[in-house]
């Protein structure tokens, strides 16, 4: 049976034709092409159905909210709905599109030189070039400004040294956007596949985001031409701007995962007979479903309003923090509750809830942990920074 999306507050009525069509087109793609393949990739630790990349590109999933260079130029609400549908499939699928579009194409589009844009953006929109985003290090996650990776200038070349960890798509990337400390601040460097001294081994043993490739990046005296440094970046505002883009997408994505779990739990409860009656006819399961539907509806309203604000150009990064924090949090709780309602069946990969639940543990951590977003909000509300 096909997915039934929850729209209790008729939020569809608030959407334009384009926004609805974009969502429906991606929904169909996920149902027909992605979902039949996901379990096989989850069973193999750390793999992604790369054969879908050309179709994803044809659909326009990479950099869908950017203009020019072969990108679709959709508004941010449509973009959010696309992320929602991708994550309804799997957080790994949404991560693939987020990293390519929000963390790689967006910085090149915003901070890159003309030559860098021409070289990478059309190829990345077509899925012919894959990008990754190297910010996190083994010892610096929540506090990226502490990073040790450094770039030293020697004439027209920069020499990069350091280790990045937890890099989505690291080993398959044609270009890695590596963030490094420089003499006067921080820089973003486009390190191409095969650069001397660059290695990208995959990380294994993940319980979470298994349908996604996660790698380390080792850079040992890796030379990067000055032409590959993003000219528009001097400090941490560069990477943080990318993160705001990606976090915005996650605020929507988490709703997709939550809707998938709610739909699965509701159907299961209707069909499952316990003590001679449908599970759905009992008070505790009903209370759980009512709570899930309420939280999803609240998250939908938060995301839609955030998208409209973003389209009006009035976005503050702390608004994104609120939505990322809340929506991932309720997504994870909904996934756990759905898993619980499915009983033993819930632990099988025939059902999606536990996969979403495990994935959302990553989503809670990356792109700013839940706690860090509370602190960003706290700082915004009080003026005190509680980070250190």
């Amino acid at each position, binding site marked *: 049976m*096909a997915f039934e999306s929850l729209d209790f507050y008729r939020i569809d009525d608030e959407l334009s*034709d384009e926004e609805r069509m*974009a969502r429906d087109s991606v929904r*169909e*793609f996920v149902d027909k092409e992605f979902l039949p393949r996901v379990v096989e990739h989850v069973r193999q630790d750390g793999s992604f159905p790369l054969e879908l990349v050309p179709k994803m590109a044809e*659909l326009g999933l990479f950099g869908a909210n950017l203009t020019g260079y*072969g990108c679709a130029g959709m508004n941010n609400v449509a973009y959010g709905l696309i992320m929602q549908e991708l994550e309804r499939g799997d957080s790994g699928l949404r991560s693939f599109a987020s990293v390519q579009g929000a963390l790689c194409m967006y910085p090149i589009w915003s901070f890159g030189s003309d030559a860098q844009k021409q070289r990478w953006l059309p190829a990345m929109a077509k899925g012919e070039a894959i990008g990754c985003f190297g910010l996190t290090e083994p010892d610096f996650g929540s506090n990226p400004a502490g990073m040790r990776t450094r770039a030293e200038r020697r004439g027209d070349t920069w020499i990069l040294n350091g280790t990045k960890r937890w890099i989505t798509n690291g080993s398959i990337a044609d270009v890695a956007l590596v963030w490094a400390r420089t003499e006067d601040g921080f820089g973003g460097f486009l390190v191409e596949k095969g650069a001397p001294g660059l290695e990208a081994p995959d990380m294994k043993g993940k319980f979470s985001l298994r349908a996604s490739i996660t790698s380390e990046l080792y850079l040992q005296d890796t030379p990067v031409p000055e032409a590959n440094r993003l000219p528009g970046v001097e400090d941490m505002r560069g990477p943080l701007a990318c993160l705001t883009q990606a976090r915005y997408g996650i605020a929507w994505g988490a709703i997709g995962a939550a809707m998938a779990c709610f739909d699965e739990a509701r159907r299961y409860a209707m069909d499952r007979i316990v003590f001679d009656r449908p599970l759905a006819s009992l008070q505790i399961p009903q209370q759980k479903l009512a709570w899930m539907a309420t939280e999803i509806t609240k998250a939908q309203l938060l995301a839609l309003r955030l998208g409209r604000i973003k389209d009006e150009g009035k976005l503050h990064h702390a608004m994104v923090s609120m939505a990322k924090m809340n929506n991932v949090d309720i997504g994870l709780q909904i996934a756990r509750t759905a898993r619980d309602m499915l009983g033993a069946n819930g632990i099988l990969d025939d059902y999606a809830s536990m996969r979403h639940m495990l994935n959302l543990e990553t989503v809670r951590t990356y792109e700013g942990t839940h706690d860090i977003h509370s602190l960003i909000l706290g700082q915004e509300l009080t003026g005190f920074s509680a980070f250190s």
Partner: protein
Amino acid sequence: MKILVCVKQVPHKDARLEISSDETWIQDESIKFEINAYDTYALEEALRIKDAGEAEVVILSIGPDRAIQALRTALGMGADRAILVWDDALAGTDSLGIAKALAAVAKAEQPDLILTGLMADDTNYSLTPPMLAELTQLPHVTAVVKETQQNGDIVAERELEGGALEVVKLPRPCLLSIQTGMNDVRYASLKGIMQAKKKPLETKSLADLGLQASDVAPKVTLEKIFLPPRGKGAEIVEGSIDEIATQVVTKIKELGLL
């Protein structure tokens, strides 16, 4: 070449349907709609002809305002322009009334090829395509599963009973009604969706087509729709899988069906 593709917006295949209180249709106020599946194959075929050479693909639909969504989707998939015909008089019409309205547009558009779905998922009549062909005096074939262009003619493969196929040839202009599974229907790409809003979408009333309400007054009227009462005599077979299988086979043999 100009290709006219007729599409109908029908209730979404996953919509939960309930019969309306007057028992002459379903409650359709808050359900989702989509393009009739048969028609999506017709549209895809038209877009393939366009991709392979020069063609203008015009989408034609009869339906209320909500059908604009179906037309926008077709435009997002790559069609060039769309025409929506609506008039309150069309609400209760029959297949012939629909065919008359379609024919009025077809006569004005003068396409080289008309493609339709074999039937509509909601009403299941399969009548409109042959009626439209007759009214426009075009040669036509139904249940087409493959189509190739040959010096102004069309060679079409049709599906017969029992999996057999037949090959027919007919001159253009003509009408083909398309069977599902003919091709792999594309998704509306995000870029296509963005372009769709700039493409022309005309709406026409019956008067714009030179027709009057009496022209489309139904000869066949829908009296009632209902779900058949639950059948009696169903037998529940219980036991292990092997026991069930044995009992079922025995039963079928008893009935002389094997």
